């Protein structure tokens, strides 16, 4: 479930019911390849580049992206990959505190690196803003770029992605689900 910003707290949670598939698994694979090329082009290679996936949807994507980068550039050393749960940095904690879904694991300092944050869906921008705050506590990156599989609009903060798999206009009340089998748009039924 990609809708972390407005995810109902567990007791309210329901079941996602898809209305239409907007990207197939193949579409996603091609998007990842394209984004990998764009990262290499923008940063003149992968030296000094690290990927950090945002929990939870961005983590598998970051892994796949790292694999693509290594394949394209045939690097001897793997691209550093980390995972980040930004729950403690959010400014929009609602009636109940959001419980972190998974642990943060960044096994390297950020000083001197270009960090590419990876997430599955970009929506209001609050998760990314929280992630930027969190990154400050891990060191001082040279630059931070943002890669997302889907940009669904409705930004509430001045945040923009550097790399996008698909631009997908949505209604506010709709939900976007990203999984290994593809990207679907639908709603949550309680």
């Amino acid at each position: 479930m990609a809708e972390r910003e407005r995810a109902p707290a567990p007791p309210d949670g329901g079941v996602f019911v898809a209305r239409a598939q907007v990207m197939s698994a193949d579409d996603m694979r091609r998007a990842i390849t394209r984004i990998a090329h764009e990262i290499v082009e923008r940063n003149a290679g992968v030296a000094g580049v690290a990927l950090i996936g945002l929990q939870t949807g961005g983590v598998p994507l970051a892994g796949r992206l790292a694999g693509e980068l290594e394949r394209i550039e045939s690097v001897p050393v793997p691209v550093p990959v980390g995972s980040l749960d930004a729950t403690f940095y959010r400014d929009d904690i609602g009636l109940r505190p959001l419980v972190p879904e998974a642990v943060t694991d960044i096994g390297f300092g950020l000083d001197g690196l270009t960090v590419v944050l990876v997430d599955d869906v970009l929506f209001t921008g609050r998760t990314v803003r929280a992630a930027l705050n969190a990154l400050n506590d891990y060191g001082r990156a040279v630059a931070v770029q943002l890669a997302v599989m889907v940009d669904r609009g409705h930004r509430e903060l001045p945040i923009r992605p550097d790399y996008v798999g698909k631009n997908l206009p949505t209604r506010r009340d709709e939900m976007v689900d990203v999984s290994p089998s593809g990207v679907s748009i639908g709603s949550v039924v309680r």
Partner: protein
Amino acid sequence: MTATHLLSVADLGTDGIEEVLRVTDSFVEVSARAIPKVPALRGRTVVSLFFEDSTRTRLSFEAAARRLSADVMNFAVSSSSVNKGECLRDTVETIDAMGVDALVVRHGSSGVPWQVAGWVGASVINAGDGAHEHPTQALLDCFTIRQRRGSLEGLRIAIVGDVKHSRVARSGVLAFTALGAEVTLVAPPTLLPPSLEGWPVTVSHELDPVLVKADVAYMLRMQSERMTGSLLPSRREYTAGFGLTRRRAALLPDGALVMHPGPLNRGVEIAAEVAGMPGSVITSQVANGVAVRMAVLYLLLGGAG
């Protein structure tokens, strides 16, 4: 956790305990960072109100609050500066009126955190009341056991020593059994509560047979004050019967843990060399204490103000 207070482990239930332990994982990671701080409780005020001397627990709560970016105030009231008869309620209501978010209360009398919770609007966390409960100690103990053994389900935990006067034991029994462990209390009859009716435990007056099958040996502090009041003939007799000596530690199965809530009375309830053995997780308990307290503060206060 939907409650506003943490007064007893029983308030949490199995689900609540699991939630705290899960969130603690995140805070262990935070504490391991170069900058072990998150802004989650920025703008909140946590006051520690300790009527009993306890530097370690007070500092542990303070560290936890600071790592969450909360503001901290300390009222370390020793028993000499608060006369018996000085109004506890006045002190507490004055602090509450300053607009604080949480009161961490430790007192030598059972029940005080419940009384305080009835007088204030802030969240109350029981940091130890008389001989009654010490919920965060039980939680960090559960977390520590889980770190080493994965799960408490079916584990045999022996709690050894002065159970009668121990809030750590009472909270421990509640928490360990809620997570599926089997608890045995080991003590001479004078150091057990007068009635164990309703306690989900077995009892033994002999330590050796219990150690042979134990997954955890949890040693309680043997306070020297207990030597009066005819509870025990002498410290030597206690150690001979119930101390975790080197000989006894060798009886423990491989992988068994040795735990202690601190501070240790080396040579009384636990031999100095045993405290340093590989199976001893006493220092981990202390380290985990901060992370567990961060989890508790976060779950109680992390909602909208």
